[in-house]
C-alpha cells in the first residue's frame, strides 16, 4: 500500500503530501483528501499504466477509489486478469 500511496502522490501532483500522510482507510474524495472528478480519471489512468487494469467506466471508480485500501484490494483482485 505504501507503493500505491507514492504512485497516487506522483500521479496527482500532491507535492505537499507524504505517503504516511494518507491513511489506509481515509476517504480519498471530498471530505478526506479532497480529490475531485479529474483526479478520479487520473486514478483510472494510474491503474491502467501501472497495473494494466482497465476500469469499464468512471462510475465504477466511485467504489474502487473510496480509500487506498479499497484500491489495493481491487488491484489484488484484478491483477493478471485480462480485462482489456
Amino acid at each position: 500500500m505504501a507503493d500505491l500511496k507514492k504512485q497516487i502522490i506522483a500521479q496527482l501532483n500532491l507535492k505537499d503530501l507524504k505517503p504516511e500522510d494518507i491513511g489506509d482507510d481515509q476517504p480519498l474524495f471530498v471530505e478526506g483528501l479532497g480529490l475531485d472528478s479529474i483526479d478520479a480519471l487520473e486514478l483510472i489512468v494510474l491503474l491502467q499504466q501501472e497495473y494494466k487494469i482497465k476500469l469499464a467506466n468512471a462510475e465504477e471508480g466511485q467504489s474502487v477509489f473510496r480509500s487506498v485500501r479499497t484500491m489495493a484490494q481491487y488491484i489484488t483482485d484484478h491483477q493478471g486478469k485480462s480485462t482489456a
Partner: protein
Amino acid sequence: MKDEQAYITAYSSVARRSACRNGNIVFQGDENVNTGDFLTSLYKYLGADYPKLYKMDNLSRLGFLAVELLLTGRNLSENYNPEETGIVLSNANASLDADVNYMASVKNIPSPALFVYTLPNIVIGEISIRHHFKGENAFFVSEKFDEAFMHFYVTDLFSRAALKACICGWVECFRDDYKAVVWLVENNSREGALPFTIDQIHKSYLLSNGETNG
C-alpha cells in the same frame, strides 16, 4: 451613456523571473530556472497555502500567482458581493502550452488532468475558484495586448453596473516565454489609486516590461 469613472487600485506583473507589484520588484527567481520551477518558487515566496497549484498548467499558475500578488493584503469579499467581481483576460497563444503537453501525453495514455487545461479560460476558472468571484468573465485572444479594447470592455461592464471590481490583463505563457500583467479595477477610489484610462494601462504595461529588462 454615463461614462463612470473607475480606478486602478493595484497592478502586478510576472515576467522574466521577476514579480512586481505597483511597479516595485517584490521577488526575483534564480537564474536559468524554467517556467515551472520559477512559478513554484514564486508560489513558495508568496506563502499561499493552495496545493492545488501543483496540478495546474503553467498558464494557470502564472495567472493565479499574478493575481495572488495583485490582491496581497486585500480581500475583495469585504467590499463586494461575489457577483460584483469578475475577470477579463487576454493573450496571444490561448492554451497552446497545455495543448502541446497534452498532445505529448496522448502517445501513452492521454492525461485527463492535462486536458482540462487545454482552454485558456480555465485560468479564469482557477482564479475565480480561489477568490470566489462569480461575476462576468471572458478570455480574449489577440496578437498583442490591446489596451484600448480592454479599457472599453471593462468600462462598459462598470457603466452597466455588471461589476464593481474587475481584474483584467494579459496572461501569456508558451514554454519558457511567459508574461502576466494584471490590474485590479474598482469603481471606488483608494489611496494611491490611478485613474483607469488607456494611458495608465499603457504606462503600467510598459513599466512592467522595462523593469524586467536585464
